[in-house]
């Protein structure tokens, strides 16, 4: 049995009903495979004792699960009201220019996926950009070049 299998079993033990471990298990599977590929879903399902179809039906409800491949790095720009009021769209466009992709796409080398997301809960420190889930606050369009360089340097 794989390490993932054992980790999922440990998660299941935290809950009175094992199915509660579905989201954490999918998160682990995604971390291991980069996205919820059919294989990742199969592994998660096996650990949980659910069917892959069940895992797929749950995963498809949640924005943080990737049902298609994504880049090694994830750049998420909040474009909800508070961020948009202070220039989130300009930040997004700067990323589009620097990365040469549109929102929702992955760079050709498979390194970076850029996407917009709904409110990240940092509204007073807008614009919020999540870089591999770490929040950058007060991001402005002219910060974007340096951020992309940093991401690229991170290899």
């Amino acid at each position, binding site marked *: 049995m794989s390490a993932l299998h054992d980790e999922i079993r440990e998660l299941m033990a*935290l*809950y*009175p*009903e094992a*199915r*509660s*471990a*579905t*989201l*954490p298990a999918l*998160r682990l599977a995604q971390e291991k495979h980069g996205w919820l590929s059919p294989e990742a879903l199969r592994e998660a399902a096996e650990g949980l004792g659910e069917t892959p179809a069940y895992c797929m*039906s*749950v995963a498809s*409800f*949640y*924005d*943080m*699960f*990737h*049902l*298609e*491949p*994504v880049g090694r790095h994830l750049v998420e720009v909040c*474009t*909800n*009201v*508070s961020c*948009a*009021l*202070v*220039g*989130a*769209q300009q930040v997004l466009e700067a990323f*589009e220019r620097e990365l*040469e*992709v*549109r*929102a*929702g*796409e*992955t*760079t*050709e080398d498979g390194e970076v*996926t850029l*996407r*917009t*997301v*709904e*409110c*990240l*809960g*940092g*509204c*007073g*420190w*807008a614009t919020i950009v*999540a870089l591999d*889930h*770490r*929040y950058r606050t007060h991001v402005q369009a002219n910060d974007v070049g340096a951020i992309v360089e940093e991401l690229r340097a991170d290899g």
Partner: protein
Amino acid sequence: MAEPRLVVLQGADERDLTKLSEYRAIGGYDALAKARALAPQAVIDELLASNLRGRGGAFFATGRKWSFIPKPDQNPNPHYLVVNADESEPGSFKDNEILSRVPHRFIEGCLITAHAVESKHVFVYIRGEYLGPFEAVRDALEEIRDDERLLGGVTIVVHRGAGAYICGEETALLESLEGKRGQPRSKPPFPAISGLYASPTVVNNVETLATVPPIVAMGGAAYAKLGVENSTGTRVVSLSGNLVRGGNYEVAHGITLRELIYDLGGGIAEGRELKAVIPGGSSTVILTAEEIDVPYDYDALAEVGTAMGSAGVIAIDDRCCMVQLGIRVSEFYEHESCGKCTPCREGTRWMTAILRKLEAGEASDSELDLLLDVCDRINGKCLCPLGETAAMAVASYVLKFRDEFLAHLDGGCPFGSQSPLDGVVAPVNQHTHSPVAEVPA
């Protein structure tokens, strides 16, 4: 003006309260000892005396909610405390700061509440995006892991969500915590009777729980002296939008919106004029700049037809087009609708579509009426409040800025790209997750 840190964030400016030793140094976890020396009902009585009302949005009296939980001899199932740390309402980011800066006060609140409702099992459902706050709580829990005296046999499991606004609705949250799609349940039964795993469950917001230790420490009656009648105590208000100093500010209820915006928030940035204020997160009815002398409390806001919601105040300056605001807000709810009820699922889509036509100058008078009609057909016809709050919020833009909407009928948007919300790419427009880039020309 100095930021008042009255109750929930008290001490956090002076000390690093993420550390157990620092929290202990200001009397941290003393309230827990005090509560445990009391019978559960006596703790509930303190909460009733404080008149604390839930900070998650519905403002339901916390002591009353706890008193609905059956006693162990009435229902032998385990009792659960589930913390709502899903904070996803646009404009709100207070729980983010509370978890990050005073995690021990929050945990102490969980432990006191567990005692009051006779529960040994706490689940903290935290939105998946909140990595920093998650780590703060995890590290704080790690510090007390072996302290059985503090934990008192209670287990606290931190459960991370995976990106869905609707999981903030308490029954959707419970579904999600049970490992399912996060779709709301019909009520009744209420969670107090049949919640997590069909057992008695209290669902409380992060800020509500972080307010519990100070209430126990100072006594419910003393807490009730803060703030105003019906809205006792303090509130951590999130200020954002076109302000000089956005951020979270803990204030006593009853301060006016004007004071929040101009004294604490430093006024409107770049010397612009205030145009409108969303007072309690994007689900609340908008106020015009003329309406901001209203005190920030439940009754006063209800009197002007709006609500405190999750205390996310968004200030909007005079460059912003209200039709564009409607589009962006409608797109959010369209994206986040769980799809269970037709009026919400389809209605939010229609709202966006009509607003887009208006913005493009392609709508006729009758379509403005159609927009309000669609809102009306969502209102009161949905399982949970998501659909109807979306409809009421957007309808309020039309009702309060009608001239601006009418101006869009002849020739389109008078603001165009001057407005910061022009052409903003919302997630709902960007569903293609193409694995490989289509490089823009």
